């Protein structure tokens, strides 16, 4: 329906921009991962697989990656556990207050990430709010150390950040379920509990997969929360990358790790997309 000139005018500029600023940088990162760093801290453009073999050989990278995935997995699970019932409540039980409550869930998303992470630091610290409160009501005598500078703090903070992210697609999926299906289920003798498991939950699975993907991928690549609250035991894979681009100056190695992360994320996305299509029925 639209002329070729129009289509060209509309398609080319974004295509060019995206190629220059997205595609080429990713390809560059791929290239960097095959280069190396000389003793005098310059980047040598000779092609080698040394970086990748180092990743496979040296323990710390694997361990950190696994720890990161474990942290991301916990964040994902907690976000779903917190987010799903909330979405279900809003969608099916909130009635007229639904919109207002929805806004209330979204608002924290708009509050600076840094601000929220920092606030948790305030709460969890040795002389932070939680510890002093616990001592004030005589539940504990000494500050609980594990609260801050630990994987616990990272998981807690990231769960706080990503629960709304998990909530959004689940809520959207639940809202899409025609209400007459729920009525039909009741009509045929299923209690609300049975209706949930037999009708509502299966139809909401695409939303759950999307929410889980969001939470997992974004927390896997997070470096701010670990830096602020993780301490030495809470270091994640992105922190290693950051230091390789900073003090530990080894861009090629950092690029190798980043590229692996990129591949991991892209394959997770493909996988979750297929899963969603399989469970989508309308």
């Amino acid at each position, binding site marked *: 329906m639209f002329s070729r000139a129009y289509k060209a005018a509309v398609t080319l500029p974004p295509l060019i921009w995206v190629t220059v600023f997205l595609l080429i940088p990713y390809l560059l990162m791929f290239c960097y991962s095959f280069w190396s760093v000389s003793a005098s801290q310059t980047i040598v453009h000779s092609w080698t697989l040394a970086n990748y073999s180092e990743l496979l050989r040296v323990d710390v990278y694997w361990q950190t990656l696994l720890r990161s995935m474990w942290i991301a997995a916990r964040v994902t699970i907690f976000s779903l556990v917190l987010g799903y019932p909330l979405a279900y409540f809003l969608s099916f039980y909130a009635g007229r207050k639904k919109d207002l409550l929805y806004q209330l869930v979204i608002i924290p998303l708009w509050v600076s990430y840094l601000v929220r992470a920092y606030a948790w630091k305030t709460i969890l610290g040795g002389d932070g709010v939680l510890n002093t409160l616990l001592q004030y009501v005589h539940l504990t005598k000494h500050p609980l150390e594990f609260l801050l500078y630990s994987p616990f703090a990272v998981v807690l903070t990231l769960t706080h950040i990503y629960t709304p992210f998990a909530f959004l697609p689940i809520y959207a999926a639940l809202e899409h379920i025609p209400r*007459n299906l729920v009525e*039909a289920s009741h*009509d*045929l003798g*299923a209690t609300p509990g049975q209706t949930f498991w037999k009708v509502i939950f299966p139809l909401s699975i695409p939303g759950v997969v999307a929410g889980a993907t969001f939470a997992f991928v974004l927390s896997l690549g997070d470096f701010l929360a670990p830096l602020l609250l993780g301490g030495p035991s809470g270091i994640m894979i992105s922190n290693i990358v950051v230091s390789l681009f900073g003090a530990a100056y080894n861009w090629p190695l950092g690029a190798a790790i980043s590229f692996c992360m990129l591949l991991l994320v892209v394959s997770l996305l493909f996988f979750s997309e297929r899963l969603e299509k399989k469970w989508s029925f*309308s």
Partner: protein
Amino acid sequence: MRDAGDSVGRATLLSIRNVAKRFGKNVVLRDISLDVAEGEFLTILGESGSGKTTLLRIIAGFETASAGEVWMGEERLDREPPYRRRVNTVFQHYALFPHLTVEQNVAYGLRVAKRPEAEIASRVEEALAKVKMSAHAKSKPSKISGGQQQRIALARALVNRPRLLLLDEPLSALDANLRRQMQVELKSLQREVGISFIFVTHDQEEAMVMSDRIALLRSGELEQVATPREIYGRPATAYAAQFIGHTNLLKAAVREGVVHCGPLMWPTALPDGPALFSLRPENVRLATGNPVAGAVRVAGRVRHQAFHGATELIRVECGDGLVLVVRTPGSRGALDNVELEFSPSDAVLVRESPKRI
């Protein structure tokens, strides 16, 4: 309005007593009382906004009445949640579960009730055969047509052997021919299965074709509850007369034993005062030869003729502002000045329906 007599003297299955429903300030149902007999095909007929769907939903359990009670046998039905009522519904847009196959959809109610697998299998097979959908057992709802989905919705409801089946305008999404076919099938299915059906529609022809009785609902109140023949031949109100079929509504005045309506006059035993009559177009004839004894005759000019295939509807201006619509069999060719004739006994006295908000 009280139910005008129960159908064929059968036992009462469902008793709706003084049910009212308000949504905020909006009154949707006012004081509905109605008894449904065992094995009866009852249609709740009404325009959109009349409250018919709301009434059905109250019986199904998806709405709670603001006032009044619903009884089934000796028990209060409206105290139960929908999943404990022995009532099943065929939804307007079928509400088939998209993630389950046709077979699984039909088996749903039985699975939930934890019936043994063998029993489920045989009952589902039987239900699918009854609606002629056995070949599609393993398909998903998205792959079958609207008419087929409708049959599955029916099977899914009936397989549970409810005491009462509710149908919420199930045929409205079908095209005309399929609709007519389904009307016949539904009616014979009901006879075969033998349970009470409550059918909701806005289509008066559909109601006439299928029902043992029709409950005409208008703005939340029952206008008339009667068999199709009664409601057609003896409409209680002007609205009933006009809603079902075509009619001529004659605003008349009775003076000293004679009805006066424009140029029309005939003797009557009614007391003096204003009166409203319903006269069906098929009871008005084009006059031929000598007047039949007691018949009323009037002359007029033909304004419009509409050919309907089997019959023709002719609008005739009779002077004094009176317009009569006449239904004649076949086609009469172009007409100009005519004389019309009808028997006063065909002019049925109707009440004016009270104004509703």
